[in-house]
């Protein structure tokens, strides 16, 4: 079975069958078997697993490594497995009687192993057999008189027919070493290394705005709306900088940037495809994480919804109303507790899309997707945005809005480039939040908390300015976080950076910061943080 016709789910299913057979889940299976439809084969995958349990597999792996040096390694490996299968069948049958009904017609092989053989003996017997019958030295070289099939450009099939080796046809497809997949999987994840601030600032503001639009997408606000926002937000440390809001809708390319931009767009498309591949690769785990997170959030939503006591015809008797039954014949002398709707809470997710994140786009977009999807399942409105800064513009890109029903997959259109002026981005996010009417607002920032922008902090036109980076930028960001919190917005940070950046992140976000070391604990960690905030709402 060719690799690309087997779905991720069937691969995972084959893994599971093998792990089950091996009674061990700590390895990455190498051989996997599929039937003609691309479905995982029950019997053969169990046999592969059983081989792991029965034998010292590292010794067999050495044999496979030797066979892999040959062009027709899949044929040799098929012969090997067909020879080992009867042994495993006999030894497994007592513990798993059902094998009898699952077993396909066994293949005839000239290579034979005895039931009691150890891994060493098996490897030795196989090595001898491959040397005698196929002339394999085990180091990639073949004895001269066995080189015929390749020399004559003959197909393996006709060679085997001539040689009379009864090879079980289906098993020619068995060869499915994992590294073959991996190569294909990572193909889309070419790491983008282009710098973000390569365009000089000699362009005028409208020209720059056009450039930014070409790069990031059509603006969602009119020029006058943006001017209004800039007057309000680009003050203090952010004076002389600009804001750009986009929904990510692409702009037709034209003018001088087109060739360069075409190239850039291709790279962006590769990153976006890479994000999806990254998610798909761990699809099962991601779905489990989403389910787990949504259960814990929905439970917490339930718990912290304000219960409402209503008059009802059944429920708990309300002594204050009881007289009405006797005097007025009113049966509604009971009280029933109903939970109010959770609709007064919203969550915004803000992704740091600066250059430092380029290597992590896959994991960041997956994490954001898990949170957004989990919230959606709990009917908590959720908006996802990213921010980065370029040529003095801080770009707020909107992936999905509160109302956008269904599709969270646009989050995978996330790619990272340029600088990050966290302070201004948080301010802009805060402004966007202030326009919503939800009672409880939460802002989750996924960032390495390393604010840095080439646009300097300037007091007036002539001021050469101070650079926006290091402690100064951290202080500015921390102040914005405090300001948001003072406005009643819960701000929490999912830290995506490295050890060195952690202390800085702590000064900015304080206690409400988590670091995901192991994605398996993602749901627990993030769930706890979100629920912790919700608890505050209930107070």
């Amino acid at each position, binding site marked *: 079975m060719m690799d690309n016709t087997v779905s991720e789910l069937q691969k995972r299913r084959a893994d599971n069958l093998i792990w089950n057979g091996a009674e061990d889940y700590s390895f990455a299976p190498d051989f996997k078997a599929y039937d003609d439809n691309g479905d*995982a084969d029950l019997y053969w995958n169990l046999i592969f697993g059983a081989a792991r349990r029965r034998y010292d597999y590292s010794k067999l792996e050495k044999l496979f490594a030797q066979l892999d040096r040959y062009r027709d390694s899949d044929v040799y490996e098929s012969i090997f497995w067909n020879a080992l299968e009867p042994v495993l069948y006999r030894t497994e049958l007592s513990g798993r009687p059902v094998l009898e009904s699952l077993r396909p017609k066994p293949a005839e092989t000239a290579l034979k192993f005895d039931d009691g053989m150890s891994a060493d003996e098996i490897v030795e017997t196989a090595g001898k057999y491959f040397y005698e019958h196929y002339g394999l030295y085990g180091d990639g070289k073949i004895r001269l008189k066995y080189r015929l099939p390749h020399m004559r450009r003959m197909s393996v099939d006709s060679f085997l027919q001539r040689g009379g080796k009864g090879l079980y046809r289906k098993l020619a497809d068995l060869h499915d070493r994992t590294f073959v997949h991996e190569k294909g999987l990572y193909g889309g994840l070419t790491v983008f290394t282009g710098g973000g601030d390569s365009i000089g600032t000699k362009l005028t503001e409208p020209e720059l705005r056009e450039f930014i639009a070409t790069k990031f997408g059509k603006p969602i606000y009119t020029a006058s709306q943006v001017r209004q926002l800039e007057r309000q937000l680009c003050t203090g440390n952010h004076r002389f900088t600009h804001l750009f809001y986009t929904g990510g809708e692409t702009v037709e390319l034209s003018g001088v940037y087109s060739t360069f931009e075409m190239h850039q767009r291709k790279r962006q498309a590769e990153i976006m495809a890479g994000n999806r591949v990254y998610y798909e690769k761990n699809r099962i785990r991601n779905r489990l994480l989403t389910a787990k997170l949504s259960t814990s959030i929905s439970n917490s939503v339930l718990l912290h919804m304000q219960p409402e006591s209503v008059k009802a015809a059944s429920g708990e008797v309300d002594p204050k109303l009881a007289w009405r039954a006797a005097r007025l014949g009113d049966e509604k002398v009971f009280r029933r507790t109903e939970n109010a709707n959770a609709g007064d809470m919203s969550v915004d997710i803000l992704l740091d899309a600066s250059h430092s994140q380029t290597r992590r786009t896959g994991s960041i977009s997956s994490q954001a997707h898990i949170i957004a999807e989990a919230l959606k399942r709990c009917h908590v409105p959720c908006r996802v945005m990213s921010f980065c800064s370029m040529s003095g513009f801080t770009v707020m890109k909107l992936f999905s809005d509160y109302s956008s029903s269904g599709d969270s997959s646009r989050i995978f259109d996330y790619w990272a480039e340029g600088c990050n002026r966290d302070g201004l981005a948080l301010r802009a996010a805060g402004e966007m939040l202030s326009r919503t009417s939800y009672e409880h607002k939460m802002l989750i920032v996924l960032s390495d908390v390393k604010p840095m922008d080439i646009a300097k902090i300037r007091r007036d036109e002539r001021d050469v300015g101070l650079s926006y980076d290091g402690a100064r930028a951290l202080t500015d960001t921390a102040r914005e976080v405090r300001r948001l919190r003072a406005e009643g917005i819960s701000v929490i940070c999912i830290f995506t950076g490295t050890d060195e950046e952690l202390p800085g992140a702590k000064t900015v976000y304080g206690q409400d910061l988590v670091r995901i070391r192991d994605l398996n604990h993602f749901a627990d960690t993030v769930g706890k943080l979100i629920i912790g905030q919700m608890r505050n709402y209930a107070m």
Partner: protein
Amino acid sequence: MLDFLRQEGIGEDLIARIEEYRRQWPAAEGDRARIPVPRFRYYGSEIWKLAITAILSGENLLLVGPKATGKNVFAENLSAVFGRPEWDISFYLNTDASTLIGTDTFKNGEVSFRKGPICACAEAGGFGILDEINMAKNESLAVLHATLDFRRIIDVPGYSRIILAPPTRFIATMNYGYAGTRELNEALASRFMVINMPVITGADLEKLLAQQYPSLKAEYISQLTVLFEEIRRKCESSEISTKALDLRGLLAAVNLVFNGLSLREALDIAIINKSFDGFERTLVEDIVSTRINGSLKKEDIFE
């Protein structure tokens, strides 16, 4: 039940003290019907020893453990061993003081106090099983603090205080980290002796199946046991959720076969279909398919 404890290897001294306890506190005539006759037995001598000693010492128990560890079976077994009437109180999100202690009701034109299960249990000196205690909000459990600690009282405003009858014990169960559960607060946790319930071992599961279905062939007892362990291993490695790890389902499946379904059909509805996610179900189905022959019927697996 005491013979069963001897089989499980519980020392004669403990058994003698249980007998002494039972002699000292015979259940009232009217409460006899509440003494459970367990359908399942709990296997695990170490846990038995811990729990018996704690109860004899006057302590309340908190049984903590994941799914399929027999928390409720064990709680019921304990009531039976000590011969105490049992009150089962299931905790849920909206459990509050009135559902536990009691509430005012309207009776014959008068407001009167209707006792809740905790009060009833306390007066009769029964065993109160507080099932899934961490499903309830901690605040609503605060009313139990005085009941569970050395004071052993229930104070209902407007009524006289109820003093717990001496043999009264409370046995709480909880599944930590289970969806829909909460952290138990320290004040409450400190009022219990906490027993971590181990996952049932293969040997104990075989015993359980053999006791439950004496005519089940040994071969299938072991196949079903291994099947259960394979599902558990898959859960532990986070490949599937714990929905299919269902001991009740496994036992029910055998019963279904006894009543006419094929083993595969029974496992379909008792185990496999409990995974509602399509792919997860496929994984569980694969475990079953590679363990259980589709055509096995009652006459094949029972003697």
